[in-house]
């Protein structure tokens, strides 16, 4: 399901649900740094773009700007060729056909499920509304829930209904703002798959903001990494995993070690190192400081003499180590991890 081919650029641009953002900048009056700096991104029609980034990287601001809740200092937003926002024009939030699912779901507490789902469908005939509602409820696995009220639902059910509600009017673009953050990981996993299924069926273009790397990697057709208000890398999940453009990008997906040594590149993943006896000569040695057991793997923290932050090495769970014993660290692969020379488009933080 994840392997996707990307349609050619010019076809993308004129599709009814393709999103084109150009040089979008947003700044808040009380902070010196702009929240978004010249962000450019294109999302192909009916595809899912995941956005990851640390807090404060600008993810929420981007979504809010797309919705029309922030007014950009400069830049344009076009959805399916229609200008939503530019220096000359600004379409009100309620007129942009953009669906939004927020972190807390925000079901309207005083309306039942049917009324919530039908909230955005006021111009539809009643019969059509009922059909659409039934259809959606079946798709999310909650048939016959029409009469229930939000306070009778569990967390997972609420999020599913919130998703259905946003999808009900068949919006060309859907924004998901960390929708599964409040749920436990099993629920998150099942909802992830369900969401991806529905989005494919509905053929909605989606932007999916998350800070869980597994959500981003598994669900998105492409991923954009944001840091300090810009997109620092935008690529397919596999490419991103293999060739992150900077330690920042890499650290979002995995545990990394930053090493200021001149021997090799300045950062390495934990699973690219291995532990050997001191006598076997690794590139550096130290004392085992701590061991964390994660079931499938273990993380061993090694304190190197001239370094303060322990180096983290991933080892198999069967291997036994002693805290306090000296150990040596060796690189697992010979192939250097280097930043591939990326195309200029990627370098500038432009997606596609």
């Amino acid at each position, binding site marked *: 399901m994840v392997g996707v081919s990307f349609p050619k650029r010019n076809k993308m641009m004129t599709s009814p649900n393709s999103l084109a953002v150009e040089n979008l900048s947003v700044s808040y*009056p009380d902070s010196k740094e702009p929240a978004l700096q010249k962000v450019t991104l294109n999302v192909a029609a009916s595809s899912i773009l995941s956005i990851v980034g640390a807090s404060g990287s600008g993810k929420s601001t981007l979504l809010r700007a797309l*919705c*029309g*809740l*922030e*007014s950009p200092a400069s830049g344009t937003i076009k959805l399916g060729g229609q200008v939503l926002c530019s220096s000359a024009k*600004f379409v*009100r*939030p*309620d*007129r942009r*056909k*953009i*669906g*939004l699912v*927020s*972190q*807390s779901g*925000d079901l*309207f*507490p*005083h309306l039942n499920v049917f009324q919530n789902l039908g*909230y*955005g469908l*006021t111009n539809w005939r009643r019969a059509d509304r009922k059909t659409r509602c039934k259809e959606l409820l079946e798709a999310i696995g909650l048939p016959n829930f029409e009469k229930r*009220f939000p*306070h009778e639902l569990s967390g997972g059910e609420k999020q599913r209904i*919130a998703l259905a*509600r*946003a999808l009900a*009017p068949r919006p060309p673009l859907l*924004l998901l703002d960390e929708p599964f953050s409040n749920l436990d990981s099993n629920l998150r996993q099942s909802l992830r798959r369900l969401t991806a299924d529905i989005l494919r069926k509905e053929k909605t273009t989606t932007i999916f903001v998350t800070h869980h790397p597994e959500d981003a990697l598994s669900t998105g057709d492409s991923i954009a990494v944001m840091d300090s208000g810009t997109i620092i890398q935008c690529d397919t999940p596999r490419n991103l995993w293999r060739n992150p453009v900077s330690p920042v990008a890499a650290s979002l997906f995995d545990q990394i070690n930053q090493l200021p040594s001149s021997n090799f590149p300045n950062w390495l993943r934990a699973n690219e190192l291995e532990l050997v006896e001191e006598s076997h000569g690794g590139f550096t040695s130290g004392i085992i400081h701590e061991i964390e057991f994660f079931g499938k793997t273990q993380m061993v923290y090694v304190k190197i003499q001239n370094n303060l932050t322990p180096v983290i090495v991933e080892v198999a769970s069967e291997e036994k180590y002693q805290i306090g014993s000296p150990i040596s660290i060796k690189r697992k692969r010979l192939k250097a991890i280097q930043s591939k020379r990326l195309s200029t488009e990627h370098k500038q933080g432009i997606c596609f």
Partner: protein
Amino acid sequence: MFFKKKPFHSDTWGLRLWKFLAWALGLTLLAPVLVILLSLFSSLSPDSTEAWQQISSFLLKDAIKETIILVIGSCVVASLLGIPAAWFIENFDFPGKRLLSIALVLPLAIPPFIAAIISSDLREKLIPFLIKIRREEGVESFLWWEEHLRYGCLILLFGSLLYPYVFLAGRSAFAGSGIIMGEAGRMLGRSPWRVFSSIQLPLARPALAAGIFLVAMEVINDYGAVKHFGFNTLTVTLFTTWFGMDQIETAKKLASWILISVFFLVALEHWHRGRALRSLHPEGAKSFGSPSSIITRIACYLSCLVPISLGLILPLFGLIDWLLKSSSIYDQIDWEEIITASRHTLILALSSTVICLATALIIIGAARFSTNPILRVISKFSTVAGYACPGTVIALGVMGFAVALGNQFPSESWIGRLLVPSGFIWLLFAIVTRYFSIGSQMVQQGLARQNKSLDQSSFSLGKTPTKTFFRINLPLLKPSILGGATLVFVDVCKELPLCLLLRPFDFETLSTLTYSKVDQGAIYACAIPSLFLISVSMLGLIIVELNGWRKLSKTK
């Protein structure tokens, strides 16, 4: 907000109209206060200057002293009655708790003025003691005791009738985070008392400050009870300057000074409240359960029964006693008078409630959907205006405003007649300005509980802010609106000074009727209007308490 700082053309028409209305209403509410503040800087005519000198040199010092003593004393008593009751009700479960918690709020229905009159019978019991003092220790000692006993009685009266403000504030404060912190404290091995004094009380202080502030404002504002006890606070002095001496300009100057000092109090309270940590309102907060020891059990009941006896049972007994005594003059009672007064009270209360709540919704709703900082400031200040201004000050401001406005139109035209300074519309205006803050605070709290993301979901589904307000925010505000409406209604029914000062010709309310009857000496005849008044108020309060307006976090 709908969106931030965007060109004007992106607001909907509905939103634009709404914001305009909010501005207009907010400024209108501030007008009386501004009129009074202006007179700080105006110069007085020689006639008024003389009157002002009289007041400032002879009357002002005593007025200030008496006001301060009464305010501080009443706040202390109210806290002593209200805080323990709130703590025990929130932290423990015991049989009868629900009934007691409703009864604890009911003293608010009793106007202090009526309680003052009822209390005179009781106070006469103190006279033998005073006579003994006079005989044994001489006149000076008698005079000293007489004055201090009077202070004590009035302070006790105010404290007993107004403690519900502190009680309610305490309930909100001790629920939620208070209990969680308390549990944490218990786990660390501290006794309940230590937990209370070192954790819960400091955390609750800001909310309690708000309640105590309300008590202080009620005492400052009171005219009937204070006058009856022979004290001359700032409000009474203002009254007599305006009414007794007919010196409106001087009264305005006095009012402006009162306003400044009250604003200082408000600033103090806001600053104190601002330092509070955001309350947590965790859903799972539980009480400590049933009281463990017999001492705690007794304390639970005692803390509730003492305030109720002082503030509710005693006055009611007195009132019933009156009723029985007045049964001999039933045939002389002018029922028509009472019914007319009731009708007037009802009209006044209903119309002011509706206007207050509608205005509150307009102003606060507009502030929610707008980013204009000035609109927010206006929204905040229009709340403060009525909250912080003594009723007499507002009445003066409204009068000044009315006269200035009325002079613009010829008196014969229909608009001239509508705006005539003694018209009903100005009484309504003053009452709305005074009580606006109660309604708007409830609305504000209720609206703040609604996450902005709720609005945003509605926008994303294609609804304009106006539609969102009516379909989402408003239905969810129903408990707050009901609570605010009831409080405003009850307070307007009880209102005396404003009605005395600004009432239209031949317009008696139940409270002014009672006041005039007492003035004439026909004390028992006012038992029945008083009973009407108190019953209506109590009914309102009971309805609100039963609906649990306090627990607004649950919807549906």
